[in-house]
């Protein structure tokens, strides 16, 4: 058993029992971050802040929401929006944050792809990140069911139908997921459970994994330079703060994180108060009606690119393409065969692959919302084929990529 002495202060008392000083060092003051990074590295903190907004606003919504198909719509649109003091604020914050969190995740993802932050020991960071993305998608979808409006109902119908597996015709599976022939009470209550308990637990666990995955390889930097963190941190601690290539997480990097968060909050609250329509679809302010399909059914914007990959094909090929799109990003570290982990712009053909993928996904996203007619169908089909083709050629174009390590040393 450890030896305890009479504590000289509260801090000492805690230190003997919880080693708080050591923990603080490990997590903050001696968690070393490269200096050669830009504001895109603050997206992680922006995501944490947004997640906290979602969690807090969600708790308040949870106190008045009723998971019953007869009263759900009323509890949201009357009780929360009209009666609960500031209920409207929690709902708008929750709705807007749920949409914006995906924008930031996409920026975070494409930052990782651009700077090659999924290689050289950082594979688990990427994989845990993609698992988070998938869990967030499930969280967003299950949450979208809860107001029980027209879009909730019909998105629930369409998405659960995906599990029939096309020609496999697994109606039993679809009915098992729904607990009914159509989305009804059992469906609403189980998605409510998923949204408020199981998926948030999974998300919190995965966030822990994502952070843990960062410990050993450390954060990447703007040039993909391999740093000797031990030597550089010694230099810092010896007093050469300016000469060292690394800095403390807190307060050094955190002050920059907070600066970015400050700018982000201006953007976020502008959306919450003045431009929330994009996150709260008007159609969902009509109560669910199983006998009336809305004229246009489309998912929230962040699902549109994968939805568009499903759409232009016959059902079986569509489902295979859709499944491909859902999981392919996870395998990026293994499909990119190049030894270089430097910004995409210094990497031969991969440079075109990166910008091409970004543009293609934006095209898919916009076509996914437009009605599937005429020229939009054609553009959507081409963009979907391009998406698949680009992933197939990725290993081929990266395999013969030239080493570009030398460039960094010139700087």
């Amino acid at each position: 058993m450890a030896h305890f002495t009479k504590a000289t202060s509260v801090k000492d008392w805690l230190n003997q029992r919880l080693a708080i000083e050591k923990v603080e060092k490990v997590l903050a003051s001696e968690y070393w971050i490269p200096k050669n990074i830009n504001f895109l590295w603050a997206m992680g903190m922006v995501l944490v802040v947004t997640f906290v907004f979602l969690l807090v606003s969600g708790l308040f919504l949870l106190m008045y929401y009723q998971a019953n198909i007869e009263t759900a719509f009323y509890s949201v649109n009357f009780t929360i929006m009209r009666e609960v003091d500031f209920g409207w604020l929690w709902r708008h914050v929750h709705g807007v944050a749920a949409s914006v969190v995906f924008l930031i995740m996409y920026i975070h993802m494409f930052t990782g792809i651009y700077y090659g932050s999924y290689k050289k020991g950082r594979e688990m960071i990427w994989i845990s990140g993609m698992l988070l993305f998938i869990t967030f998608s499930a969280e967003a979808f299950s949450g979208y069911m809860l107001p029980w409006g027209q879009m909730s109902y019909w998105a629930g119908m369409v998405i659960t139908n995906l599990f029939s597996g096309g020609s496999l015709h697994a109606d039993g599976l679809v009915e098992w997921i729904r607990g009914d022939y159509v989305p009804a009470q059992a469906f609403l209550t189980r998605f409510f459970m998923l949204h408020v308990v199981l998926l948030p637990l999974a998300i919190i666990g995965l966030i822990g994994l994502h952070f843990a995955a960062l410990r050993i390889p450390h954060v990447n930097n703007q040039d993909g330079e391999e740093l000797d963190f031990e030597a550089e941190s010694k230099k810092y601690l010896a007093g050469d703060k300016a000469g060292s290539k690394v800095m403390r997480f807190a307060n050094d990097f955190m002050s920059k994180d907070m600066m970015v968060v400050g700018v982000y909050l201006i953007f976020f609250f502008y959306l919450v108060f003045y431009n929330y329509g994009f996150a709260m679809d008007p159609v969902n302010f009509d109560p669910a009606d199983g006998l009336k399909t809305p004229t246009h059914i489309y998912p929230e914007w962040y699902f549109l690119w994968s939805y568009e990959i499903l759409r232009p094909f016959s059902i079986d090929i569509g489902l295979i393409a859709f499944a491909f799109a859902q999981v392919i990003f996870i395998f990026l570290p293994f499909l990119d065969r190049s030894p270089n982990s430097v910004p995409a712009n210094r990497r031969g053909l991969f440079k075109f692959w990166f910008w091409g993928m970004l543009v293609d996904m934006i095209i898919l996203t916009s076509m996914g919302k437009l009605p599937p007619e005429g020229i939009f169908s054609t553009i959507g089909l081409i963009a979907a084929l391009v998406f698949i083709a680009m992933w197939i050629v990725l290993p081929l174009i990266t395999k013969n990529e030239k080493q570009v390590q030398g460039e960094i040393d010139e700087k």
Partner: protein
Amino acid sequence: MKNDSRRGFMGKAFGAVAAVGAIGSFVAMKKSWDPLPSVKAAGFTTLDMSVYKENKLVTEKWRGKPIFILKKTAEMVAKQTEEQKARDIVIGDAHFMVSIGLCTHLGCIPAYKESDEAFKCACHGGEFDFSGEVTKVPPPRALDIPPFRIDGNTLVLGEVGPEYTAMKETGITL
């Protein structure tokens, strides 16, 4: 390090016992997600077929699903192909198109356009003719026909009659 092999064996045995318990609980979890008996026993719908007007689509409801009933006009009956005719439900001398009103692609409700004598789905652009056959993809197959039994002038949805069995056997509906 004594008894190493024995500890190894008991460890595995304990693991196996734990696994049995876990699998057992999964069975219960799976079954708790099944549709409830009250849901499964959702009633049968009986329809009086003498009330429908020609080329006017009426949407009835059965187990929470919309059911399309379309009485065909004489011209429709005259011009339809054998495949289209095979899908007809004939009561007296009236021909009906009866189907589950959900697109076989991803379950939206197609709208009936009387002037075109066709169904158009707003979701993904699928189209069906007045017999429920696909005329434009993505739908993989014609509109599904619900289980039915003809009883004089009425149609009972949910019960299986000889006409429905025949349709199922010939692959007209799933």
